[in-house]
């Protein structure tokens, strides 16, 4: 298991958001984490991303535990949230160069070119990020996230705010990212999209995982029905 979460509890002051979650992911799996608003999906992802500390519980990624070995975890993690995490006043190239230096990536020039190629932004590399559309920014954000070739990728509702075309482009990139054998955990509201991408669907409701089902066990067209039923039962 490349991600192991055991009895994870997260409290904000007196409010408990995650109540003893158990969660594990095998290498190469693409897990779609679904759930209603306020279920704790973003909180959970932030903990996995080492941006937030667990109140109680054990989390380990790629053999390193959080929060004590957070630096080692971060090296192996790529994160895309719904905010682009990019600097508008720098060009796409400069943004990637900055992150290459922060992640201490060898042969940065070649890597940056490859990544820009992969996300379809090679022609815009010298343009300021603030001139990019939201879809382009998301793609560049993914580029930033894969720059250091992480084993595990976390996506927090990456399709938010994108139109159909942009979503489709994003999906192409996502498929490419997943194809390299990377492990992916993605939260989403967009059931139709994740139906095509994910190999496993987990439901997070009221702070715990209430159901988990493999792609092979379900007809992706019935995903909505499965989701509704799982929520109702919780």
């Amino acid at each position, binding site marked *: 298991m490349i991600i192991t979460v055991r009895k994870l509890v997260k409290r*904000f*002051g*007196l*409010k408990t958001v995650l109540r003893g979650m158990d969660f594990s992911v095998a290498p190469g799996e693409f897990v779609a984490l679904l759930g209603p608003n306020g279920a704790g999906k973003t909180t959970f992802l932030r903990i996995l991303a080492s941006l937030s500390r667990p109140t109680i519980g054990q989390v380990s990624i790629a053999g390193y535990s959080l929060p004590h070995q957070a630096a080692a975890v971060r090296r192996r993690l790529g994160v895309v949230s719904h905010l682009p995490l990019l600097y508008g006043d720098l060009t796409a190239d400069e943004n990637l160069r900055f992150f290459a230096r922060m992640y201490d990536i060898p042969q940065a020039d070649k890597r940056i070119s490859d990544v820009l190629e992969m996300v379809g932004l090679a022609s815009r590399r010298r343009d300021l990020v603030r001139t990019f559309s939201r879809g382009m920014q998301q793609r560049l954000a993914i580029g930033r996230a894969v720059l250091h070739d992480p084993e595990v990728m976390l996506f927090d509702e990456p399709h938010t705010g994108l139109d159909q075309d942009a979503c489709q482009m994003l999906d192409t990139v996502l498929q490419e990212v997943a194809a390299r054998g990377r492990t992916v955990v993605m939260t989403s509201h967009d059931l139709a999209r994740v139906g095509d991408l994910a190999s496993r669907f987990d439901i997070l409701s009221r702070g715990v995982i209430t159901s988990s089902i493999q792609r092979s066990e379900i007809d992706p067209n019935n995903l909505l029905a499965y989701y509704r039923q799982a929520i109702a039962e919780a």
Partner: protein
Amino acid sequence: MESKPRMLVILDVITSLLFLTAVGMVFFYAPLEAVMGQVQRVFYFHVANAWVGMLGFMVAAISGIAYLRKGDRKWDIVGLSAIEISFVFFFTAIVSGSIWARGSWGTWWTWDPRLTTAAICELVYAAYFLLRQGIEDPDRRARFGAVYAILSFISVPLTFISIRIFRTIHPVIIGAGGSGAEGSFDMSPRMLHTFIFSLITFSIIFADLLWHRIRLGKLAEEAENLRLKTLQ
């Protein structure tokens, strides 16, 4: 919800008795000072107040460190309580210092290092409250409060020293008669007794109030907890 612990009840009684005694000593036991007359009596409580204010600040800074290291919410309540109480004590110290200044030199304010530092401390406390007010998440509020309490506590001695040097190189025209309480008169034994007694009394008042305030904080948290439980 427990009722007041016995120790606290006893402490309340002791505190009240000490305070009454202290007041009595100030007005009847301590002699009348030759130069300043009745106004001088302000001195006993003035210094005690300021001393307790600083004590509170120290408690807050130490609780801050404890909170950051342990993460136990009770340290946050202790820190907040200490600063709330110090706020009041410093205020009293400033007001009594002002009365003293009026009595000694005829002005309501002097830029004396101690008085000025006390005023700056008040502003720091006000900033502390404003900081806490602007944060929703209780853990973040506690963390930021702890950090600010620590940093501001470190700055106080430096502030005091800088004002001190400022004054010795450029003595202010008003209030050139010295830096406030000490040195402007000699204390007879009875004055000394009253002075020390006041210091002790006020320290105990501080402890008593702190305990009450911490209980209040804990009750508030319990209430909040129950409220959230019923909502969820």
